[in-house]
C-alpha cells in the first residue's frame, strides 16, 4: 500500500498545481506526437514479415515488383480511329506523360529501329538461344517442314523489300528468326507491336505500361496522378466515332481507391464510435464531461506507444499505428471502471475519486498487469509485425494506465461533475439474470464442447488481397484490360540465387528447362524467363558443343540440299547459314552477355530479371502455375539454388504461420496471467476462474465464426489477442466483486458492462466499414468482447458460487 499512499500525495500536489500539470501534459503529448512523421511511417506490408535472403519479406517484395503493385496500365481507345491514328495519339500521349515528370518509366512498343538493334544483337547468335540446336536443325531439315519454310521464303523474296533484305532472308532458310521473335512476343502477351506502340489484338486499344515516380502506396501522390491523368484524358482529341477514352488500372488505382474507402470508413466508424461512447457516458453519468476526461489517458496511450516504437526502431508501420491505436482503446476500460466506482462513493471530488481508486486499486493493477503481459508476449514472436504491435500496445497500455492512475483522479476531482450520478437502476438488475451454479457450469461446458466440435472446420484465409476494400467494378475493369491485351499477372516467381551473375543465370537456365517441360504437361504457362534471350555463357557453350552430335555435312547434303534444289534454290544460296552453324559449333562467335543488351528494348526486362547486390546475384523467372498441386510439384523439382515464390504459397506457408504463432503466444500469455493471478489470489482455481470468461469468449468467437463459415484472416486472428486482453480484465473485475466483502454491490458487473460497451462502441462499429480488414476486425472483436462480457457477468458468478459451495469458503487471497 506504500505505492497507493505515495500516489495520494502526488494527487494532492497535482490538485494544487493543476494548470501547471495540464500544461506539462499537453507539452508531453505534443512532443511525443511530433515523432509521427510520414517519413518515419513504413507502408510496405512486407516489412511486417521476417526478412533476409529467401525470407517471406523478400518474397512479398519480389512478388510486388513483378505483380501490378507499382505498375499503372493506361488503355487508350479512340473510337473509330484507324490503327495509324491510334498509334499517333498514343505516341503523343506517351511523350506528354514522359515530359510530365510523374513517371519513372513510360513504356510503349518497340520501334522498327529497336527491332533492328535487337536483331543485330540476337540473330547472329540465335543458335545459342535454342535449348537443343542440333535437334532443332534436324527437325527443321525434314523434307516436308523444310519445303514449307522454303516456300514461305520464296514469297518473301518476291516482295519489293527483298531487294534490301535479301541477305538476311537467305540466312534463314529454316525460319528460325520468326519463331524466335514470336517466342519473345509471347512473353509480352497477345500484344501487337505497331509503329512503336502496343495495340490490342483487335487494333482498337493502345497500351502504355507506366511506372509512376512514387510507390503506389504513396496514396496522396497516386490520387493526384490519377486526377492529372483524368484531366489529360479529357483533353484528348476525339475519334471519328466519339470521345477518346483513357482507362488507368493497376496498383496505384487500387491503392488510391482503397485509401479513399479507408478514409470514408474511418470517418464513419469514428463518428459512430463517438456517438456510441457519448450515448454510453450519457446513459451512465448523465453528461459528457467524464468522457473528455477519460479520453486523456487514451491520448497518452497513443503517444506512449508511438514514442516507444519510433525511439526503438526509428520507424513505425502504418498498420501497427492503426491497429495498435485500436488495441490500446482497451485502455478506456480502466478510467470507466474507476469512474463507475467513484460515482458510488461519498465525499468531495478528490476524496470520492480517492475512495473509488482504493476500491478498484487491486483489480485495476491485476487487469493492467495481465493485459500488458499479454501484449508483451507478442515481443517473442518471430514476425517483426507482431513484435512491433506488442511493443506499441504494451507501451501504449502502460502509459495509458499510468495516466489513469496519476492524472485522472485529480483532473476528475477538479473538472468532474458536481453531482455524480448513481448507477442507473436497470444496470444492477442484470445481476438478477446471473446463472445458477449448475447452469453456469453446464453453459461453460457446452461452450467448450461446441467450440471443440466447430473449430476444426474454421478456415484461415491467408490471401492478403482479400483484406482490401471490395471494389468489384475496379477489379473487373482491370481484368478487362488484362484480357484485352492478353496479359497475365505473375503470381509465381522462381528465384535463382548464386554468388555471380553467370552462376545465377546457369541455375535459371535449368529452371527455364524445367518450366518448359511443365508447360508441355499443362502445369504452367506464361513463362517469362531471362533464359529465353540470355542464357548463361556456360549454357551457350554447351549448346554450341551439342552441335557436334549433328553430322552437318550429312544433314546438309542428304536432307537440306535435295529439298532446296527441288524448291528452286541454287546450291550456294544458303552458304552463309551453314557457315554460321559451323562457326557456332566451333565457338568462333562470342556468346551473348548482359552488356550486349544495353541499347536494346530488352534492357528494361533484363534489369528487372537479373540483379546483383554485394553478396549475391539473383535471376528471376515468372510464370503462372496451373493450381496448387503444380506449385508443389514444380517447387519439389527445382534445382539447388532456386526457390519458388508463389503468392498463394507465401500466404499458405508464411501468413498462415501467424494464427499458429498467435495461438502459441496467446497460450503463453494466458499461462503467464494464470501464474500471476495464482500468486496474487494464492489460489490456482481462482486464477483459472478469472481467466475463464476470456477463454469462453475466445472459444465462443471461434465457434461462431466456424458455424457462420466466416474465415479468420491476418487481422481478425491478430484481434483475438484483444479478446483475451479484455476478457481477462472483465473476469478480474467481476471476481473482485463476487469474492469481495460486498458481493451484492453492482460496481464490478456494471464496470464490466460499461467497459464492454465502450469496447463495442470502438470496435463493433468497424462492422460498418467497407474495408474488409476493418470489417473482419469489427466482427471478431465484437463477438469476442460481447461473449467475454456476457461470460463474466452472467456465468462467472455462478461458477464462483459453484466452487464456493464445494470449498465452503473463499481463499483469503481472492478477498480484498
Amino acid at each position, binding site marked *: 500500500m506504500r505505492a497507493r499512499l505515495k500516489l495520494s500525495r502526488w494527487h494532492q500536489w497535482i490538485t494544487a498545481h493543476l494548470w501547471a500539470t495540464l500544461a506539462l501534459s499537453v507539452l508531453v503529448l505534443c512532443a511525443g506526437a511530433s515523432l509521427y512523421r510520414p517519413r518515419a511511417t513504413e507502408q510496405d506490408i512486407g516489412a511486417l514479415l521476417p526478412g533476409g535472403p529467401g525470407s517471406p519479406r523478400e518474397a512479398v517484395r519480389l512478388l510486388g515488383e513483378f505483380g501490378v503493385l507499382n505498375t499503372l496500365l493506361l488503355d487508350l481507345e479512340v473510337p473509330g480511329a484507324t490503327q495509324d491514328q491510334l498509334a499517333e495519339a498514343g505516341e503523343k500521349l506517351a511523350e506528354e506523360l514522359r515530359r510530365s515528370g510523374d513517371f519513372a518509366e513510360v513504356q510503349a512498343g518497340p*520501334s*522498327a529501329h529497336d527491332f533492328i538493334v535487337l536483331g543485330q544483337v540476337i540473330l547472329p547468335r540465335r543458335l545459342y538461344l535454342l535449348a537443343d540446336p542440333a535437334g532443332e536443325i534436324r527437325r527443321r531439315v525434314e523434307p516436308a517442314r523444310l519445303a514449307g519454310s522454303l516456300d514461305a521464303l520464296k*514469297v518473301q523474296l*518476291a516482295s519489293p523489300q527483298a531487294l534490301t533484305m*535479301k541477305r538476311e532472308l*537467305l540466312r534463314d532458310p529454316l525460319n528460325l528468326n520468326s519463331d524466335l521473335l514470336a517466342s519473345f512476343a509471347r512473353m509480352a502477351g497477345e500484344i501487337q507491336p505497331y509503329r512503336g506502340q502496343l495495340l490490342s489484338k483487335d487494333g482498337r486499344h493502345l497500351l502504355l505500361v507506366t511506372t509512376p515516380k512514387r510507390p503506389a502506396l504513396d496514396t496522396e501522390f497516386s490520387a493526384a496522378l490519377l486526377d492529372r491523368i483524368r484531366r489529360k484524358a479529357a483533353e484528348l482529341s476525339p475519334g471519328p466515332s466519339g470521345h477518346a477514352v483513357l482507362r488507368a488500372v493497376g496498383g496505384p488505382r487500387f491503392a488510391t481507391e482503397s485509401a479513399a474507402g479507408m478514409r470514408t470508413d474511418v470517418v464513419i466508424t469514428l463518428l459512430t464510435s463517438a456517438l456510441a461512447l457519448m450515448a454510453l457516458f450519457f446513459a451512465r453519468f448523465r453528461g459528457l464531461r467524464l468522457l473528455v476526461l477519460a479520453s486523456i489517458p487514451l491520448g497518452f496511450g497513443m503517444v506512449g506507444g508511438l514514442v516507444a516504437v519510433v525511439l526503438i526502431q526509428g520507424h513505425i508501420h502504418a498498420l501497427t499505428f492503426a491497429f495498435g491505436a485500436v488495441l490500446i482503446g482497451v485502455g478506456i476500460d480502466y478510467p470507466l471502471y474507476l469512474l463507475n466506482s467513484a460515482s458510488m462513493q461519498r465525499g468531495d471530488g478528490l476524496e470520492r475519486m480517492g475512495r473509488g481508486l482504493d476500491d478498484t486499486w487491486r483489480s485495476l493493477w491485476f487487469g493492467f498487469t495481465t493485459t500488458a503481459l499479454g501484449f508483451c508476449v507478442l515481443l517473442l514472436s518471430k514476425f517483426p509485425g507482431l513484435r512491433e504491435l506488442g511493443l506499441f500496445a504494451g507501451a501504449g497500455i502502460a502509459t495509458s494506465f499510468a495516466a489513469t492512475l496519476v492524472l485522472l483522479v485529480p483532473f476528475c476531482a477538479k473538472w468532474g461533475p458536481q453531482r455524480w450520478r448513481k448507477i442507473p437502476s436497470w444496470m444492477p438488475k442484470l445481476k438478477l439474470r446471473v446463472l445458477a451454479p449448475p447452469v453456469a457450469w453446464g453453459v461453460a461446458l457446452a461452450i467448450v464442447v461446441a467450440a471443440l466440435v466447430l473449430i476444426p472446420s474454421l478456415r484461415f484465409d491467408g490471401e492478403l488481397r482479400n483484406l482490401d476494400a471490395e471494389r468489384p467494378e475496379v477489379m473487373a475493369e482491370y481484368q478487362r484490360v488484362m484480357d484485352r491485351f492478353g496479359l497475365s499477372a505473375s503470381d509465381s516467381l522462381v528465384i535463382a540465387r548464386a554468388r555471380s551473375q553467370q552462376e545465377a543465370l546457369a541455375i535459371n537456365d535449368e529452371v527455364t528447362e524445367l518450366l518448359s517441360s511443365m508447360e508441355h504437361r499443362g502445369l504452367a504457362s506464361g513463362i517469362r524467363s531471362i533464359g529465353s534471350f540470355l542464357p548463361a555463357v556456360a549454357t551457350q557453350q554447351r549448346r554450341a558443343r551439342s552441335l557436334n552430335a549433328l553430322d552437318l555435312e550429312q544433314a546438309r547434303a542428304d536432307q537440306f540440299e535435295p529439298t532446296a534444289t527441288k524448291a*528452286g534454290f541454287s546450291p550456294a*544460296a544458303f552458304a552463309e547459314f551453314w557457315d554460321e552453324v559451323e562457326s557456332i559449333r566451333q565457338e568462333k562467335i562470342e556468346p551473348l552477355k548482359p552488356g550486349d543488351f544495353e541499347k536494346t528494348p530488352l534492357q528494361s526486362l533484363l534489369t528487372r530479371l537479373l540483379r546483383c547486390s554485394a553478396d549475391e546475384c539473383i535471376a528471376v523467372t515468372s510464370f503462372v502455375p496451373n493450381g496448387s498441386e503444380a506449385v508443389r510439384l514444380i517447387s519439389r523439382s527445382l534445382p539447388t539454388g532456386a526457390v519458388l515464390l508463389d503468392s498463394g504459397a507465401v500466404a499458405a506457408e508464411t501468413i498462415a504461420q501467424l494464427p499458429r504463432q498467435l495461438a502459441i503466444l496467446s497460450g503463453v500469455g494466458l499461462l503467464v496471467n494464470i501464474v500471476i493471478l495464482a500468486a496474487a489470489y494464492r489460489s490456482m482455481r481462482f486464477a483459472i476462474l478469472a481467466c475463464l470468461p476470456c477463454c469462453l469468449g475466445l472459444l465462443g468467437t471461434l465457434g461462431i465464426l466456424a458455424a457462420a463459415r466466416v474465415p479468420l484472416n491476418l487481422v481478425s486472428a491478430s484481434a483475438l489477442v484483444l479478446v483475451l486482453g479484455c476478457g481477462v480484465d472483465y473476469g478480474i473485475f467481476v471476481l473482485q466483486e463476487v469474492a469481495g466483502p460486498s458481493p451484492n454491490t453492482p460496481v464490478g458487473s456494471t464496470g464490466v458492462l460499461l467497459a464492454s460497451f465502450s469496447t463495442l462502441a470502438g470496435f463493433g462499429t468497424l462492422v460498418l466499414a467497407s474495408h474488409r480488414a476493418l470489417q473482419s476486425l469489427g466482427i471478431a472483436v465484437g463477438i469476442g468482447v460481447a461473449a467475454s462480457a456476457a461470460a463474466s457477468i452472467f456465468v462467472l458468478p455462478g461458477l464462483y458460487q459453484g466452487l464456493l459451495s464445494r470449498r465452503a469458503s473463499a481463499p483469503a487471497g481472492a478477498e480484498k
Partner: protein
Amino acid sequence: MRESLQRTRQLSARFKQTRHWAALQDALVTQGTIRYEKGGRLVWRMDPPAESEVILDDQRATIHYPALGTTQTMDFAADPGLRKVFQSIRSVLEADLERLQPIFELRLDRKVPLSLTLKPRLPEVSRIVERIRLEFDKELRLTQVRLDEPGGDWTEIVFHGHAIETATR
C-alpha cells in the same frame, strides 16, 4: 513527261516481275497489281501463290503476307537509310522523276519511246541497286523497269493494262 505525271491523279496497272537471282536456279516470276494515288500511298499487291501486299507512304512500309498470317511495319522515322531505299523504290514505280533526281543521276537513253537509266548518287542506295532502267511507251506510261544489283542479280518488272485517272485542266 513532267506534264503527264502532274496530270496523273491515280494510276493502276498489272505487272509481271521476274527475278534473276543467283540464289535461285530459275527465274522467280510473280504477277500482281500496282496502284497509287498522287501524294498518297502506293499499294503493291502480288497474286497467289506468292500473295503479299506492300503499302508504301512517306512514313512507313507495311508488308502483309496473308499466307503466313503476318504483318510487318517498317517505320522510316527510325531509320533514314531505309526511308531513302523505299523512297527510291516508290519513286521508280511511280516514275516520279522530280523525286528521283536527288537520289539518282538520270541519263536519257532514247527519246521516243522514252528510255532512261538511273545511277544512284547515295551510297546506301548503291549498295542495293547499281543501275535502274525505265522504259516508257509512246503515251509516256511506264512499261518496264530493270533493276541491276551490284552482285549481278537483276529484276525485271513489266507493266501493262494501265488505268490512269488524270486531272482535267
